[in-house]
């Protein structure tokens, strides 16, 4: 079983208009920049994919990555906890102009909804947001004398993930704090697409150290010289 694909264009094939797309990363840490830019390249060449719903903790920074997707006009809706950043122009301008929708989700609830999506749990209760504007319209229930808000699972058509090591069967490790949402998203998406800094043969990753088992991964592409979003931001790079 070999899940590797030859290049980035092949990796992002099959992401179509209107899909829900999860994108790993927290700020620049773990952002799969090369996969995102490959998707933007396809949009520029073919006009697709567009009307995407993108799930990420943030809503892009600067003129690269998710921000560049928003700038390009590919994103109809963001599902995130914190749509602000050092340079949030791309999202802010479209949001204030009414050109992009926002589903604001508390960060821990976002993580748990994604986890639930991957784990086959359609709903769960959390204390987060009880009694706040964010909980309006959601069912609440009391357990052992305390009130909780019902939240639903979050699943995706596809996920874009950045890993450090992948073996050809899709077992993954992550670099430092870059794992954040990625293991959850890999499980919650029907089509999980991974860019790995290095692809190795099965057996070369110690099974004790696998973070995401290959069952959650569909495609892997090697991006040996992967860029870090924050580093690109600080260099002032724009992907246009």
């Amino acid at each position, binding site marked *: 079983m070999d899940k590797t694909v030859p290049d980035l264009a092949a990796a992002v094939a099959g992401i179509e208009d209107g899909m829900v797309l999860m994108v790993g990363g927290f700020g620049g840490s773990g952002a799969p920049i090369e996969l995102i830019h490959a998707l933007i390249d396809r949009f520029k060449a073919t006009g697709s994919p567009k009307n995407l719903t993108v799930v990420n903790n943030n809503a892009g920074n600067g003129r690269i990555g998710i921000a560049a997707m928003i700038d390009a006009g590919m994103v109809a809706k963001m599902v995130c906890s914190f749509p602000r950043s050092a340079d949030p122009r791309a999202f802010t301008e479209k949001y204030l102009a009414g050109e992009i929708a926002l589903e604001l989700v508390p960060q*821990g609830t976002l993580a*748990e909804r994604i986890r639930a999506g991957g784990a086959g749990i359609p709903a769960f209760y959390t204390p987060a947001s009880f009694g706040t504007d964010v909980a309006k319209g959601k069912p609440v229930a009391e357990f052992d004398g305390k009130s909780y808000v019902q939240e639903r699972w979050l699943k995706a058509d596809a996920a874009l993930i950045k890993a450090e090591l992948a073996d050809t069967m899709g077992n993954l490790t992550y670099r430092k704090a870059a794992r*954040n949402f990625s293991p959850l998203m890999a499980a919650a998406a029907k089509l999980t697409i991974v860019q790995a800094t290095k692809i190795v043969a099965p057996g070369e990753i110690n099974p004790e150290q696998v973070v995401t088992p290959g069952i959650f991964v569909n495609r892997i592409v090697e991006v040996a010289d992967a860029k*870090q979003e924050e580093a690109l931001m600080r260099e002032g790079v724009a992907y246009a």
Partner: protein
Amino acid sequence: MSQKLSNAQIAWRAAQDIADGAYVNLGIGFPEMVAKFQPPGRQAIFHTENGVLNFGEAPPEGEEDWDLINAGKKAITLKPGAAFFHHADSFGMVRGGHLDVAILGTYEVAENGDLANWSTGPKGVPAVGGAMDLVHGAKRVAVITDHVTKDGKPKLVKRCSLPLTGVGCVTRIYSSLAVIDIENSRFVLREKLPSMSVEELQAVTGAELVLPDVIGDLVAPEVS
């Protein structure tokens, strides 16, 4: 009120209540300052929402590794015994009652423990981050804050007027003028500036202060 505590002194005071070995989450911004003032001989283990336990201070400029950041997206370093984990585990640590203390900033805090610290109203782009999760689960949820707003209005109020972050969640307030516990939906005064009378403090507090038999002096060294 000229002798009110500086932000650094408020952070210093909050740090005195953190035990050796405590697991602690410090909110983005002002609360991060608390880490600087750990008493000698004590070492707390700091948690950040994006999946790191036991991180240390910022690296020197130019030596940042941007895959190693905190929830405020600032570069951090690791201490021996650090651990990485994914976001669902990270918030499981929060909601599951595994943190000893969470320290947050605030716009308003009410005598019933309600906290408003995420939104000043409907303008602009709303952003909540982890605030609504962080106020639930930690054994102690403390806020550090100036006692009044820039234009002199109480930040400690009867009921919050701004959008809530959480209901009934705050257990202690470290302000520029006092240390106050929230017990049975009341502000219980534990410490106040020695130069200030209870009446003066009450005048800048938006709900009644309960006065126990012993009220300590709030004194902090000159720190910055």
